[in-house]
């Protein structure tokens, strides 16, 4: 063990120091900015969470699992998982071990930032001690791990299909600089350590390479340029990092505790939204996931590109991407960092200025309210069934639902027998939440007047907003699929199972990903027939393509999306497609090659 | 009669007459085409392009003429009278000949409604009011002083059609699509012109007609106003002021136009009515010749040996007319074969 450089310094560390100073400074300022941009209540909440022991533990665990190990990615794609975790975790370990070495061998140099990074240049270590050989072994081990990850990354870049990705993002120029410098860092480190191994020691990787190099480059002077190159590669990477997708590395470490603290997007461009944008690693998993991507032209409208355009401030494209999206939430479901594509888009829509804003304050709901009061006949409790706008275009759902309610002997009445007001969710999706609130207030008046204890919805679009935005304390808001499942389970509804009936359940976006309801409809359907799964299902189900979320997609543009969703549903050749959303139903019916029915219709015809 | 080739007189050498002559020749007969005008081809010969493929009308006429080159065709020949014989008909022709025939095919076509009868539209009074035929001829000749870089133009549908006051309650069938075709052609020629179509109903029943309509709306921004033009006046600069009710809006509209095209409807050729009466063939209450049956035997009259093809029984499109001509040829063949 000896220090090789008496001055403990060599000029080649300067690039690294510049890069390090820049990136740390940048991230610090960015972090302060993001936190400062949060609304006051959110900021307080976040800062409190940082010192709450429960959150500290969750945050550390999440950061470790997500940022270093990439657990989500492992679940999704092992090759990609390995690639990412080998680089992230390997690099983390190398840095950690570097510090360990410094602390163990030259604790007096711990204040020098560059010492742990360039340890082998400054300190010659002997492998004869167990301590030393173990550390050197681990160093080589993690370096090899990183290099294997880098190798996969290179393969992925040129042939993404090999690693199981149909499409990957197209990189901007700076992203390319970042990428190539990142690729360069570790081979250069290997070279540097290899050239230095016969002096400073090495292990199973560096010693053989050292030996190979010495056969034809037998000059110690070769070592210094490689250390320079290694340092410069680090410098380049760190200097471009804030301007590339690699910004997700520091951003995500802030995003995780913020999300754990329950912070939501409040401003389209500031605070949490800004952090989410920077947390996007640009991996492009959302491209394949996005239902719009069946049209090649729409690949550029996925969340990864929204984040990129938000960084660039390209307003035209931001608007285009924000308005086109179906808001199905699939990108969030597959996203490694959990970027909320739909919420981010709705926030952009919210920001829009209008010359004319609707107003519903003048609607007189008294006739509708008194109708439900009369309908209740002086009794409180009972079910109030709100069919909603879309169900009026699919009267079969309403008929089946009311028929089932009668069969189960439930006391019920319609909230909108002759059409009612819209629930407000479509306005919310269009970014007009202020106007939606006016409708919410009006609908609340009617619901409260009815004295019901359960509000039944056959439309997941309505269901979601009634659940999330309506102040309905004391009233249970339930989707009909759940309600009927309970009635079946309680034996109040007798459903005959039909042999040979193969039903596939289409998870409507608003019901599944939106409200987390996956199992009840399947359980209810199982009473009527055999439930089989679609190619992609549960959180990864594919939007029907009819979503109200998209503002701009035309009927023609949606057609291939509908077909793709249907293809996914019919993988196992079901005899019938079943859904729980009138909009999905209306969308599928037009294009399906087999019967499509609402869950209520299926249950009604089997009871 | 036996062993002698029967004589078939075809009255009118428009596309119906030519096509029937072609088919009858192919069946081994020697039909005789009698045409009042100096040339064959009828109305279609005066038209420029045909919907829905925008194929040149001249191509169709020339092809039919080429295929009937060997058929005896008497142009500039009028029928002075037509008489019934024991087993045929005799036609007294304006060239002094008398033609004895075993079968007569009415391919007399239609007359374009005289747009000046709709006085409120001012055809023949206002310089800038023309008819569909005038416009079609302009497409052919590009020679009409009235059509000079119009900034605003209008088409009035149903001029003399579906109009009890004009004596024709029938739909002329082809005007809607013709108006849209002509409006598109005008827009292609003068892209900056505002073009308005005033219609009562749009009857775009045929193959690809609706595509024309969508194209007119979407690609050319042609304005369709549901409402019949009530009156046309002349402004001080010679342009025409058109008034109508925009019935979908429930409000009267007024617009000043550089050119107004009247979509003159289709009425029966009065000569055909005259000949029909001479030999006791019924004229229907719509003014067209009456078929034996409007469903199953539209090409046959109530008289043996008298057949119909094309617009003499009602407004027809070109493909319908051609199909009917073929059908009539077959009906004549069956009739003559049965007679032996």
């Amino acid at each position, binding site marked *: 063990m000896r220090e090789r450089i008496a001055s403990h310094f060599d000029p080649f560390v300067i690039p690294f120091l510049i890069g390090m100073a820049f990136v740390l400074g940048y991230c610090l300022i960015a972090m302060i900015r993001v936190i400062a941009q949060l609304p006051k209540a959110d900021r307080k909440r976040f800062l409190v969470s940082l010192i709450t022991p429960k959150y500290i533990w969750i945050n550390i665990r999440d950061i470790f699992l997500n940022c270093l190990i990439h657990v989500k990615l492992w679940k999704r794609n092992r090759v990609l998982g390995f690639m990412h975790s080998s680089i992230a975790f390997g690099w983390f370990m190398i840095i950690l071990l570097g510090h360990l070495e410094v602390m163990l061998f030259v604790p007096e140099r711990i204040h020098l930032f560059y010492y742990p990074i360039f340890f082998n240049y400054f300190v010659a270590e002997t492998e004869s001690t167990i301590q030393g050989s173990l550390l050197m072994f681990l160093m080589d081990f993690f370096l090899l791990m990183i290099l294997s990850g880098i190798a996969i990354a290179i393969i992925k870049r040129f042939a993404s299909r090999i690693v199981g990705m149909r499409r990957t993002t197209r990189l901007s120029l700076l992203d390319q600089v970042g990428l190539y410098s990142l690729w360069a860092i570790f081979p250069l480190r290997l070279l540097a350590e290899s050239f230095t191994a016969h002096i400073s020691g090495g292990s199973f990787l560096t010693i053989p390479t050292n030996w190979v190099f010495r056969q034809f480059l037998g000059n110690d002077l070769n070592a210094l340029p490689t250390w320079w190159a290694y340092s410069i590669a680090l410098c380049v990477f760190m200097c471009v990092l804030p301007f590339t997708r690699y910004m997700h590395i520091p951003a995500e470490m802030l995003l995780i505790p913020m999300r754990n603290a329950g912070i939501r997007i409040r401003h389209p461009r500031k605070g949490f939204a800004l952090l989410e944008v920077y947390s996007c690693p640009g991996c492009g998993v959302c491209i394949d996931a996005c239902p719009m991507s069946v049209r090649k032209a729409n690949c550029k409208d996925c969340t990864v590109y929204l984040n990129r355009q938000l960084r660039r401030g390209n307003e035209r494209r931001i608007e285009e991407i924000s308005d086109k999206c179906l808001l199905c939430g699939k990108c969030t479901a597959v996203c490694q960092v959990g970027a909320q594509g739909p919420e981010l888009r709705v926030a952009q829509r919210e920001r829009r200025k209008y010359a004319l804003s609707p107003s519903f304050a003048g609607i007189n709901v008294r006739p509708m309210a008194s109708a439900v009061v009369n309908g209740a006949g002086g009794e409180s409790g009972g079910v109030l069934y709100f069919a909603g706008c879309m169900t009026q275009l699919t009267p079969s759902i309403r008929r089946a639902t009311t028929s089932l309610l009668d069969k189960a002997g439930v006391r019920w009445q319609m909230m909108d027998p002759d059409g009612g007001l819209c629930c407000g969710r479509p306005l919310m999706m269009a970014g007009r939440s202020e106007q939606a609130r006016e409708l919410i207030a009006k609908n609340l008046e009617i619901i409260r007047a009815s004295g019901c204890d359960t509000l039944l919805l056959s439309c997941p679009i309505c269901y979601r907003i009634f659940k999330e935005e309506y102040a309905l304390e004391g009233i249970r808001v339930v989707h009909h699929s759940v309600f009927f499942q309970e009635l079946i389970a309680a034996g109040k509804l007798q459903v005959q199972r039909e042999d040979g009936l193969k039903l596939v359940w289409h998870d409507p976006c608003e019901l599944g990903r939106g409200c987390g309801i996956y199992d009840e409809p399947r359980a209810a359907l199982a009473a009527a027939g055999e439930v089989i799964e679609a190619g992609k299902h549960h959180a990864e189900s594919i939007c029907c393509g009819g979503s109200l979320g998209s503002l701009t997609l035309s009927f023609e543009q949606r057609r291939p999306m509908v077909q793709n969703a249907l293809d996914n549903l019919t993988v196992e050749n079901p005899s019938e497609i079943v859904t729980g959303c009138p909009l999905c139903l209306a969308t599928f019916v037009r294009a399906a090659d087999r019967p499509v029915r609402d869950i209520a219709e299926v249950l009604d015809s089997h009871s | 009669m036996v062993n002698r080739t029967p004589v078939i007189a075809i009255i009118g050498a428009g596309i119906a007459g030519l096509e029937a002559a072609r088919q009858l020749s192919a069946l081994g007969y020697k039909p005789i085409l009698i045409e009042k005008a100096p040339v064959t081809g009828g109305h279609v010969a005066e038209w420029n392009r045909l919907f829905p493929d925008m194929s040149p009308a001249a191509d169709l006429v020339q092809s039919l003429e080429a295929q009937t080159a060997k058929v005896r065709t008497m142009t500039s020949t009028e029928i002075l009278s037509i008489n019934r014989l024991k087993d045929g008909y005799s036609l007294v022709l304006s060239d002094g000949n008398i033609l004895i025939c075993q079968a007569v095919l009415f391919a007399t076509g239609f007359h374009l409604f005289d747009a*000046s009868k709709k*006085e*409120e539209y*001012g*055809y*023949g*009074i*206002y*310089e800038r009011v023309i008819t569909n035929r005038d416009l079609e001829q302009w497409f052919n000749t590009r020679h009409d002083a009235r059509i000079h870089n119009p900034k605003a133009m209008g088409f009035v549908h149903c001029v003399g059609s579906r109009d009890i006051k004009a004596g024709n309650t029938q739909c002329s069938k082809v005007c809607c699509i013709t108006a849209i075709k002509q409006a598109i052609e005008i827009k292609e020629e003068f892209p900056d012109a505002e073009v308005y179509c005033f219609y009562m109903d749009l009857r775009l029943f045929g193959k690809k007609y609706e595509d024309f309509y969508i194209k007119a709306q979407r690609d050319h921004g042609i304005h369709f106003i549901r409402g019949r033009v009530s*009156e046309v*006046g*002349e*402004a*001080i600069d010679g342009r025409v*002021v058109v008034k109508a009710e925009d019935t979908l809006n429930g409000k009267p509209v007024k617009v000043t136009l550089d050119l107004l095209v009247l979509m003159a409807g289709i009425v029966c050729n009065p000569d055909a009515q005259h000949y029909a009466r001479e030999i006791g063939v019924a004229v229907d209450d719509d003014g067209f010749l009456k078929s034996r049956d409007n469903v199953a035997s539209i090409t046959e009259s109530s008289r043996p040996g008298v057949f119909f093809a094309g617009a003499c029984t009602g407004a027809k499109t070109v493909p319908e007319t051609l199909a009917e001509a073929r059908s009539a040829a077959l009906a004549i063949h069956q009739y003559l074969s049965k007679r032996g």
Partner: protein
Amino acid sequence: MIYQGKQKIWADYQKEIPDNHWFYVRSCIRQNFFPASEKYFLKICRDMLGRDIYESEHHTTCAGIAYHCDTIPQETAMTVVARQFALMTEAGYDNLVTSCITSFGNYTEILETWREFPELEARIREDLWKACRREFNKPKYVAHASDLMYKLRGEIAERAQFQLVHRATGEPLRIVEHIGCHYSKMFPHKGVGGAEYPCVLSGMAEAWGGQVIDYPERRHCCGFGFRQYFVKANRGYSLSNTHKKFESMEPYHPDMIITNCPGCPYFLDRWQYVISEMNGKTYGQNGYGIPALTYEELAGLVLGVDPWDLGLQVHQVAVEPLLDKIGIPYDPARKYLGMDEKKIMTPGLPTSLKCC
């Protein structure tokens, strides 16, 4: 405008107008509006052109106004008209000539209705007999007085003292003709020249040297419209109609308007004043209005009758500029003298509309 096209239409709409022997029925309102018109119609026909025109002091309204105001059923109007026919029959005439356009329309409409529904005619005959023990023959010819004047236009032209030309320039005067709605809009074949391009007035104007101008709103109603004027709440509607016509004819700078209906000259004349008071707009030259004359007044002027004898002083719009244009002499001092040569009152002057 293709003149030959109009001529072609005129050829289609010529009606037979007997030359002589007419039973004349007056208008209810014209005598109040333009009292000299009917007088001069008779004077010109009888005294100047030597025609036999009979007038009965027993005749009443034709009930057309009440009918068009929806205050009486048509059967009532028919019975009143039947009495008129009875008077004509009793006087030994077959030809009925009416001074009023609405009467003309009313008579024509009733005769056409009887033609379609003979049982109705029988009932009216019975009703008339019950009511006043009278019987009638239907007239052989029904004409409006302007039809007769149209028929006589050539004779008048021969006797004309003045031509409808601008004396200074020799240019024909630019004349707007306005036909009463009930003249031929209901039955185009009953009007000379039909409904679209009636030539009853334009024929006179052209025969007497003028030039008729055709403007987009030429067909439009003067705005009277009975109920629209009689009910004050609707009067703005009446005015707006007239306004529309003036706006449409304005660019043509007409020298005068001639009409053949009782209401039209009145509204085309008086509303010019009202419009000028409302929005300060005048339509004639130099702040004057456009004189709106009856065809009888015009015939009188052409024949050299003194303008004040023709009653032109009762027009709201001053006629002096027009008289000057044609070169008709007049004595300004006599304008407001009565028949007895004593001064009748002089009207107050409008705010905007220039009057002499």
